[in-house]
């Protein structure tokens, strides 16, 4: 394996894990404080049991997210030293603020976890809110740094040198808002459906039905709202990419030839040789409309771009199809959930619960697919139109060794974390509240 490929795979692999940990660590505190609020208001013991069960989840995911995040902060430099040498000072601002937000989160978490019966009740609850807010702030800041790689601003690039650096402008790059909005909603959708699915499974198995139904409702309310809002954010993102990174948009749609009134391809198999997409559903004029709000607008095809400036088209296209497909499905499931609140009878039907068990992992699959679209779609650039990924990689040979080490460590960790969570649920089901 080439050093560049090994480094890219290692980065992708660690990010895929970190994203899951970070999203759960960022969203679950909100479920926890809602349950905590209901406990304070109703004094129903079930909510207290649930809050305490969820806080363990928060603690475990916060730590795993924190250590995998620490690993990433080092890996950025270890794998991409040339990138960090130039980009580090420019995008340092969101990273330093993220460090601060993360610190606030750790402090609040210390207060929250250890503050039961020791801190004033309201103050204790507020520390839970702070955990959630600072977690979301961290997430947005990190995404802002990623946004800069897609839309580099805040410097002049003259003769291979970065001068006249403006870190604030770099942080508020044109991509930060669309990406952060899309990612925050995705985090709530993915975590909400996953957590709700776990509790739905318990109801399906008829274990502690009251507790798990309450848990399900809290998690799914967040998830459904986010899933219903997500298409709007997706539309904003598509229009933004059409402007800024037309080649990425073309790859997402496997759109090879520039044309007016371009059709939108749903699904399909990409043939790179013939530049054809077979077995697709083509919606005439829709791509032009979604990208520019005009059915007749011209959409640039991949052939308008030099061959060495195009990403891996099939991978980006398939990932995009998966993301949009799952997104649409979860949008419908979200609506179905709100309807079910009016139709109490449905809750007695086990198929209702089975549905939510089945969709539980989909949110995270869509979220990972979305990151593949944005990251693979950016290639061959590490900084869009400025620095190529292959010029940023470490000169140290043998990265493949560390890649395999990371695979072993992370896979072991995820097995262990899953096992630990199963044990938590088991104990929860045997507890008396």
């Amino acid at each position, binding site marked *: 394996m080439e050093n560049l490929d090994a480094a890219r795979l290692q980065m992708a692999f660690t990010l895929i894990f970190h994203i899951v940990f970070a999203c759960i660590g960022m969203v679950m505190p909100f479920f926890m404080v809602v349950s905590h609020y209901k406990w304070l208001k109703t004094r129903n013991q079930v909510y207290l049991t649930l809050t305490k069960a969820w806080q363990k989840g928060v603690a475990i995911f916060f730590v795993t997210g924190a250590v995998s995040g620490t690993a990433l902060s080092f890996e950025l*430099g270890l794998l991409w030293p040339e990138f960090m040498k130039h980009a580090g000072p420019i995008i340092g601002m969101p990273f*330093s603020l993220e*460090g601060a937000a993360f610190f*606030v989160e750790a*402090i609040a978490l210390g207060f929250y*976890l*250890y503050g039961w019966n020791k801190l004033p009740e309201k103050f204790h609850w507020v520390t839970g809110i702070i955990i959630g807010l600072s977690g979301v702030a961290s997430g947005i800041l990190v995404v802002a740094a990623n946004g800069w790689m897609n839309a580099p601003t805040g410097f002049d690039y003259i003769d291979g040198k970065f001068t006249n650096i403006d870190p604030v402008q770099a942080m508020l790059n044109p991509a930060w808002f669309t990406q952060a909005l899309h990612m925050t909603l995705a985090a709530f959708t993915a975590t909400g459906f996953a957590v709700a699915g776990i509790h739905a499974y318990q109801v399906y198995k008829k274990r502690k039905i009251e507790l798990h139904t309450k848990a399900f409702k809290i998690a799914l309310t967040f998830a459904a709202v986010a899933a219903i809002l997500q298409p709007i954010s997706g539309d904003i993102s598509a229009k933004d990419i059409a402007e800024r990174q037309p080649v990425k948009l073309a790859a997402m749609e496997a759109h090879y030839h520039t044309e007016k009134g371009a059709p939108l391809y749903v699904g399909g198999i990409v043939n790179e040789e013939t530049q054809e997409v077979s077995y697709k559903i083509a919606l005439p004029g829709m791509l032009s409309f979604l990208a520019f709000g005009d059915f007749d607008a011209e959409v640039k095809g991949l052939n308008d771009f030099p061959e060495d400036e195009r990403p891996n088209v099939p991978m980006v296209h398939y990932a995009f199809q998966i993301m949009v497909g799952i997104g649409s499905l979860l949008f419908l499931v979200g609506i179905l959930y709100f309807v079910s609140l009016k139709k109490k009878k449905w809750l007695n039907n086990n198929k209702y619960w089975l549905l939510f068990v089945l969709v539980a992992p989909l949110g995270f699959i869509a979220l990972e697919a979305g990151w593949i679209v944005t990251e693979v779609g950016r290639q061959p650039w590490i900084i869009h139109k400025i620095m190529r990924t292959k010029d940023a990689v470490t000169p140290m040979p043998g990265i493949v060794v560390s890649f395999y080490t990371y695979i072993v460590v992370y896979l072991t960790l995820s097995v262990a974390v899953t096992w630990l969570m199963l044990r938590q649920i088991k104990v929860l089901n045997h507890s008396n509240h």
Partner: protein
Amino acid sequence: MLYVVLFFLAFSLYLYVVLGGADYGAGIVELFSSEENQKITKKTIYRVMGPVWEANHIWVIILIVILWIAFPEYYNIMVISLHIPLTIVLLGVTLRGVAFVFRHYDAVIDKSQKLYDQMFKVSSLITPIFLGIVFGALISGNIKITDDISTLTFYDAFIAPWFNAFSILVGLFFAALCAFLSSVLLIGESESGKENIYIRKSAIAAIVVFVVGFVTLGYGYLIDNVFINGFVSNPFALICVTLSAVLLIPLWKMIRKGNKVWSRSFAGLQVFFILLAALGAHFPDIIITTNGSINLLENSAPESVIKVLGISLIIGGAVILPGLFHLLKSFKMIKILDRDNNPLI
């Protein structure tokens, strides 16, 4: 503003060495304890470190982020030449963090605790040794600077900078220092009647720190190490080291008296002087390579970057430090004594 950034860099380094160090040290103390004492230590560690241990380790992230923003050249040399020890540190940090959570938050207490304990103890020893090796490598004079690293052999470029007796001695020194800090901290936190365990440990650790420190200096002097030569001929560094050694006397008195605030303050002050000596001896040249030193002040990011970073650090510090102080203070006053009262167990 560059000095504000430098202050925060040194400040985070100091806090990481003291807080993170005591945290690593707890695992080392546990590793070198009898089976019965291991149980006592495990309980005490959880009580003391539980609420603050995440915060203890965020300092290293702050440190890395300041380095890459403000001193990109410096950071670049570090991540390329010291790729291997840094990767080992990372794996250590990961395994240790996970082991800590597992052994304290696992809903079921059974045989798997043994595995978590082993993971925790071993990674608590290995991680600080390699952190020390990284610092030792930066000052060892073995890092090669070249425009084209592919002209060097793999050994010269990626192994020799850190795999040498001097760097390894610095690594051992740092691990001993962690154990020392932790023992002093644990004296004040142990249940009554158990203090003697940690008093003995801190005495042993102090001797090890002293011996390894002396050997490192002596060895460096013998091999004509640039850093050590500068160190021993620098009156400022010598005064700092002497002060640090002299502080052992009041420290010992305070331990005997059972005064935890002063005994911890003295131990913290000792580390402060050691660090001040190490950084001050060659300031502003902190990386020493085969072809000379790299000046920290002359290799910083552009002024506009430093200005924004300085302001962010001041604001961040103003938000974080009072909160952190309050956290530490609250949980010193509020004792979490037994497992029954603890929602997490």
